[in-house]
């Protein structure tokens, strides 16, 4: 089994399954914070996926995207918690 095959047929599918699982949590909630957590995890998995994809496509360029994701996802989390904290029960 070549590295390419391993990554394509084991790692990527495994990551995809993880994604699905997390997304399932995202959908069922039950409350908004669960979704925020799920989103954060989704993005982490995304970082992993992009990293693996950069090996698969033999192109380090994509790592930059992963880096941006890592840097910026945090802002989203901060914003969501900010929102929830300020908003309390307006929904």
């Amino acid at each position, binding site marked *: 089994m070549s590295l390419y095959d391993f990554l394509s047929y084991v790692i990527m599918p495994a990551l995809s399954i993880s994604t699905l699982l997390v997304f399932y949590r995202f959908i069922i909630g039950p409350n908004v914070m669960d979704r925020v957590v799920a989103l954060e995890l989704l993005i982490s998995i995304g970082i992993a996926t992009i990293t693996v994809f950069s090996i698969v496509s033999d192109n380090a*360029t994509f790592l*930059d995207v992963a880096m*941006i994701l890592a840097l*910026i996802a*945090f*802002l989203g989390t*901060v914003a969501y*918690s*900010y929102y929830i*904290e300020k908003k309390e029960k307006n929904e």
Partner: protein
Amino acid sequence: MKIILLKTAANYLLPLLLLFSVFILLRGHYEPGGGFVGGLIASIAFILHSLANGLDSTKALLKYSPFYFIPFGLSIAILSGLAPLFVGEPFMTVLWFENPLPVIGLIGSALFFDIGVYLVVIGVTLTILFTISESV
């Protein structure tokens, strides 16, 4: 939000993100990145800072109102476009210096254009977000 962890993280992230934004800006001509994303990352650094430390401390840090970044950046962009006119080339023709500089590589007016973009993006994003934060 005055949360210690966030505050600390934001304070350390600020220089790191700014550095990173310049990195993204300068290498845009060779690899993914450029003035836009660079500017966005820089603004995110400041926004993070403001969310953690309060708007006033970020404003104090910036010294100038982010609003003035906008005309400043626009001026740089437009001047870099005007430069070729003095050599008799059409507007926005990219001029290149003869010798490459270390790190950045060849310096051309396109780089200044990108710097202008960078500044405008910072100015715009921060103006928008700060204004909103103030009025929320």
